[in-house]
């Protein structure tokens, strides 16, 4: 009996921590409709600041709690700076821009934290006065856990009062539903948004600060917490604070008991809970279908078949590409394989996002599944290269079938969050399941068959697969299937009214995109000879998003251009120290300065000099 109570209390303490992080994210999303990746960074900075302040003050109980509060406040100020300088400019941009911009902030904060606090994990002190454990029914319960159990509901109550009993709170809730109308009724929503962002960031900071007696402060805290926080927000209903609380309790308590039966379940459990909840309630426990993000976008122009001249230009490019190994060195061939892999990955993501209108924050999942399936096929099934290569897209399509079934039940940013969660789960499984996937050490020694093992030979194999994959995706974009996807994106209601099976169509679109991402993963794994869990990670997913964004989402050629530019920049930047700051800065500049992407920029340039008139892509 005592043992189960102890498990319950541990679960509730975890729920409090999780709630603090998730509720800030949920509040910010509710009002600004921004999916804030940097929320994890605020959490991490809160922990680092609290560590420094507590160590520096060293002032007993009062000093400890004061330090935590001050840390939260400083994070709030940091949030204000981010909101005013960056987010304020992109409230009306599509969610893709917003997500990528906040990821730029993640990169910059990572390097800043590295510069200030160093790469070592920092072990915080215990909370003075709460350092021991009390015995309840004979089981030791850390006093600090009990404090956390109290703090969570206290914060929930305070936020509830703030939102329902103050004029400010009513205005915030009104802005959640219709920001423009709130503005037209005389409320300066700029400051409303800023205030909300400060509140949300400070809560993340507080969440991080409260963690220091429980876990070491590290540079991985930001991205490791964000996936779970997203899951909690989605389960609770985006924008709902009480929902976040219930979801946090549900996950944490279930987890506390489930690990007794199956210790590895921690990583998969949140996803399973989320899947179950979303099947029953597509907008989460307390969520409602809210107004969609961003402002009215300009309608996309109709697709055109490629003109004869366009086809000739393209053929010339392919020929130059094919001839390049003959005139350049092996190093260039290797780089070009990277470029082609990125291009296929980006085109597959664009197929899903640009054509299908399903924004994926976790497309790396299918890239990674493809790569791992090929590697494991070789290692465990003893397949030779070509069958292993075939296994990759098939496995990726299978994973996309599984996760896509859930994802297409949702739309917009909810769908995007679910794709992210799916990718995080797969990443977690790969990372934890060391006996099969090699865990952090990855799988090594996955080299091409003898006939394809030379750099030039592999280049041609990669070219056939990648260019072929891109050709097929393009062909599909022009087929009834691709048109159907665009139709569903334009108006699901109209698609249904002409007798289309909207969900099935999206599901198949999701699967096709996953399969081709898997193909890119296969080409990738044989060019590197090894595979590690980070191919499924958030960074890889965001890389794909940046490529699509760089290229501009409205053109079929966009992702190809974007991927090319991306790899070249990355190849140059990652040789530098503190490359994350530089890369994050580049991302922010692109988002803030050239929102229609490189393709859009080139297009404008061509129009300006009169080379190009109407004909697109």
């Amino acid at each position, binding site marked *: 009996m005592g043992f189960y109570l102890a498990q319950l209390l541990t679960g509730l303490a975890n729920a409090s921590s999780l709630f603090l992080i998730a509720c800030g994210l949920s509040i910010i999303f509710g009002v600004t409709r921004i999916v804030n990746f940097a929320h994890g960074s605020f959490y991490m900075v809160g922990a680092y600041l609290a560590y420094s302040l507590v160590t520096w003050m060293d002032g007993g109980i009062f000093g400890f709690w004061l330090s935590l509060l001050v840390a939260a406040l400083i994070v709030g100020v940091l949030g204000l700076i981010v909101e005013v300088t960056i987010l304020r400019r992109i409230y009306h941009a599509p969610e893709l821009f917003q997500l990528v911009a906040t990821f730029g902030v993640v990169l910059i904060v990572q390097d800043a934290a590295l510069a200030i606090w160093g790469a070592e994990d920092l072990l915080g002190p215990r909370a003075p006065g709460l350092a021991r454990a009390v015995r309840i029914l004979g089981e030791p319960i850390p006093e600090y856990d009990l404090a956390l159990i109290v703090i969570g509901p206290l914060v929930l109550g305070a936020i509830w009062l703030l939102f329902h009993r103050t004029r400010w709170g009513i205005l915030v809730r009104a802005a959640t539903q219709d920001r423009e109308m709130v503005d037209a009724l005389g409320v300066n929503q700029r400051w409303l948004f800023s205030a909300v962002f400060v509140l949300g960031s400070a809560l993340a900071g507080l969440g991080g600060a409260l963690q220091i007696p429980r876990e070491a402060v590290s540079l991985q805290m930001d991205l490791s917490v964000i996936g779970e926080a997203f899951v909690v927000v989605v389960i609770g209903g985006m924008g709902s604070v009480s929902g976040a609380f219930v979801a946090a309790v549900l996950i944490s308590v279930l987890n506390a008991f489930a690990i007794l039966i199956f210790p590895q379940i921690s990583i998969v459990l949140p996803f399973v809970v989320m899947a179950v909840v979303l099947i029953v309630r597509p907008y989460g426990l307390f969520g409602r279908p809210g107004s969609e993000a961003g402002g009215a976008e300009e309608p996309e122009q109709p697709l055109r078949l490629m003109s004869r001249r366009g086809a000739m230009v393209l053929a010339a490019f392919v020929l130059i590409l094919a001839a390049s190994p003959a005139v350049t060195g092996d190093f260039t061939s290797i780089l070009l394989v990277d470029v082609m892999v990125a291009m296929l990955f980006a085109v597959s993501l664009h197929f899903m996002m640009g054509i299908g209108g399903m924004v994926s924050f976790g497309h790396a999942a299918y890239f990674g599944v493809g790569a791992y399936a090929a590697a494991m096929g070789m290692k465990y099934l003893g397949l030779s290269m070509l069958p292993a290569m075939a296994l990759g897209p098939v496995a990726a399509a299978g994973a996309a079938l599984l996760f896509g079934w859930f994802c297409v039940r949702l739309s917009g940013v909810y769908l995007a969050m679910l794709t992210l969660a799916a990718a995080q789960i797969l990443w977690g499984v790969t990372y934890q399941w060391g006996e099969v996937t090699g865990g952090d050490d990855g799988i090594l020694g996955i080299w091409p068959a003898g006939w394809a093992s030379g750099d030039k030979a592999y280049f041609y194999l990669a070219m056939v697969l990648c260019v072929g994959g891109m050709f097929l995706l393009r062909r599909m974009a022009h087929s009834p299937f691709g048109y159907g996807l665009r139709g569903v994106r334009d108006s699901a209601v109209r698609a249904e*009214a002409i007798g289309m099976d909207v969900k099935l169509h999206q599901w198949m679109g999701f699967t096709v995109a996953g399969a081709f991402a898997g193909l890119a993963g296969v080409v990738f794994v044989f060019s590197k000879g090894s595979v590690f869990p980070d191919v499924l990670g958030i960074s890889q997913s965001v890389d794909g998003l940046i490529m699509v964004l760089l290229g501009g989402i409205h053109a079929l050629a966009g992702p190809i251009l974007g991927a090319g530019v991306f790899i070249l920049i990355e190849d140059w930047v990652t040789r530098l120290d503190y490359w994350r700051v530089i890369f994050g800065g580049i991302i922010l500049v692109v988002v803030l300065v050239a929102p229609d992407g490189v393709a859009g920029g080139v297009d404008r340039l061509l129009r300006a000099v009169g080379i190009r008139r109407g004909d697109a892509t």
Partner: protein
Amino acid sequence: MSVLEVRDLSKSFGGVEAVADVSFDLGAGEFLALIGPNGAGKTTCFNMLNGYLRPDRGSVKLEGRELVGRRPRAIVRMGVGRTFQITRTFLSMTVRENVQMALISHHKRMFDFWSRAVRMYEGEADALLDLVSMRDQAARPCSELAYGDLKRLELAIALAHEPALLLMDEPTAGMAPSERVALMALTGEIVKSRGVSVLFTEHDMDVVFAHAHRILVLNRGRLIAEGSGAEIRENPLVQEVYLGGGTVFAAEGV
């Protein structure tokens, strides 16, 4: 024989009866209007006919076949076309492509991964566009169309499935009076030439009285009157709950 037979259609939301025991018939080639105050249950009724809501009780038969329990897309395929109060089209496609999509779906070619969609059913699409006088705009992007033209395009799209019944939800909402007359006249011609029956909701009483063959009046979920324009206009109950003193419309009847 009736094209549509609605019997005892009922639906409650949280204990409140939104639609209660609604029964009516719709004859071949008939133009039937469903009117009533906001919240009377018109939309709920429509949504049960096209499959978006499942009735608690009652039956809906199209040419003798039961529609209740089927999915919206199945009902479309059985011959119920619809137009929307706020037009819904594929804005990133041309006018012709919009009709081609409906034809591709009608011919069950949606999961063709290889053919070029723009080359499919071009002739049929143009014929349908001719019918609504939109042929000259076939190559224009849908996003550039005027509002009235979008409404006509929706008609062409609905006809791609060769429907027996057309459900039109406030077909003239947001249009200027002359456009309203033109659209309803066009619909009338199509009804005649193709033998389609039409059920429509409408708030513009001038449109209703000028075009409907028969009118149903819904109030608080129940049918309170049924009859010709003149009968409905003179009905004191309808005047009280809906038409008012007649000062805000011209009401030059048929």
